[in-house]
């Protein structure tokens, strides 16, 4: 702690506060600090399926809040661990799950979307995954129907995911709030069904949002995740550390 304090002092003496980059600041912290990943496209790139206003708020405000609160929770957790405070460690787990889940889900979500003008948004970008979808659900249309029904059946806030499980293969799962899919399955693509993901544009018409999200699924990313491991799917998080 003496060293950390010293370093902080040194930084604040040598450079004006604004000039201290996030990375430099993070080196003085005990817990890992996550940062908001950049979007792989512009805010307006998913129009007309998802408006620029939604994308900007969703990324720069909502996702940022999960990142900020995850970092806070992890710092408190690391302090509770250092002082052997078990009740606090347990109490903090809900905040870590919610905000950590929010960070994981959104990071995966941005990458599994692509502008409809991009070749990545075409089904042909995922030949192996398409073959597996057809083998599992008979046809892509039947899969789409099942996925759509799952999304519209969510009560409250949550997500729908296509995942790959080691033993059983492809499966559609829904999760509540920001619960992430971190129990061994590989997330292939997810759709955010929180109202903030569509309300400014679609209002209460969530079925239209779900219909239009199919135009901007990044099938190239989905194919990569389908062929890769769980660790590879989550590598986006490590790069943001």
């Amino acid at each position, binding site marked *: 702690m003496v060293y950390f304090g010293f370093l902080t002092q040194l930084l604040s003496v040598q450079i004006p506060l604004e000039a201290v980059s996030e990375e430099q600041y993070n080196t003085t912290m005990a817990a890992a600090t996550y940062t908001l990943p950049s979007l792989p496209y512009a805010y307006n790139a998913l129009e007309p399926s998802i408006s620029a206003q939604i994308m900007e708020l969703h990324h720069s*405000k909502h996702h940022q809040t999960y990142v900020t609160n995850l970092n806070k929770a992890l710092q408190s957790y690391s302090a509770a661990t250092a002082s052997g405070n078990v009740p606090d460690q347990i109490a903090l787990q809900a905040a870590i799950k*919610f905000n950590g889940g929010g960070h994981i889900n959104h990071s995966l979500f941005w990458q599994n979307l692509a502008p409809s003008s991009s070749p990545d948004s075409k089904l042909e970008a995922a030949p192996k995954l398409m073959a597996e979808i057809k083998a599992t659900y008979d046809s892509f249309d039947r899969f789409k129907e099942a996925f759509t029904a799952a999304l519209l059946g969510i009560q409250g*806030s949550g997500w729908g995911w296509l995942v790959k499980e080691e033993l059983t293969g492809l499966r559609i799962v829904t999760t509540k709030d920001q619960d992430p899919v971190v129990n061994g399955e590989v997330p292939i693509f997810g759709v955010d069904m*929180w*109202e*903030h993901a569509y309300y*400014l544009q679609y209002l*209460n018409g969530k079925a239209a949002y779900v219909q239009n999200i199919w135009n901007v699924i990044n099938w190239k990313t989905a194919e990569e995740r389908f062929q890769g491991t769980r660790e590879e799917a989550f590598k986006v998080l490590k790069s943001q550390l």
Partner: protein
Amino acid sequence: MSSTLMRTVPALRAAARASAAKPAAAAMGTSFVRGKATLPDLPYDYPALEPYISGKIMELHHKKHHQTYVTGLNTALETIEGAKSKGDLTKAASVAPLLNFHGGGHVNHSLFWENLAPASREGGGEPDGALKKAIDEDFGGFDTFRKQMNTALAGIQGSGWAWLVKDKQSGTLGLVTRANQDPVTGNYVPLMGIDAWEHAYYLQYENRKAEYFDAIWNVINWKTVASRFDKS
């Protein structure tokens, strides 16, 4: 029973409050026509809660969202009836999540509309009388209560509601949160609810939900809340 008389004896206050509990439905504005749920009228115009809640939010919230819960509730009840008449109890039981969600949505919104009022009329301010006394005793004052309610609202992870409730057994007031549309049932009588779903504020407040939670106190109908408290 004369709750006024009993309330003058402080030791009996909790007991009096507890024993006077009535079925929660009596305190609700949920309307039914021949066993069918129907959308209740709002007791004010859509723009009446402005500038705290926009007319557009109120219109969508009432006419679309609440209507969807009413429709969903009636569908769930019909499915249960149909399953019952065929003796298919497994099918009837499978409707439970939908009944809870849509039934809860109908009950929650019906209570919500009535515990709001335009700031130019009954809305805002602070409760008085027996309710004020109970809030002072159980929360240590109105400001503390309001702060605790806002903390509870801010802490909801996902969609849900926060409620001021009366505990039927102890007779004391408390705060509870409920996920999604889970209604307040069992040992609690709901007195005042605040909707923390994003559809309740997003068009006006976007991600700044704390501003919505601050603003809504200007349109709380304490007359309704006090009347629910007195009847409970």
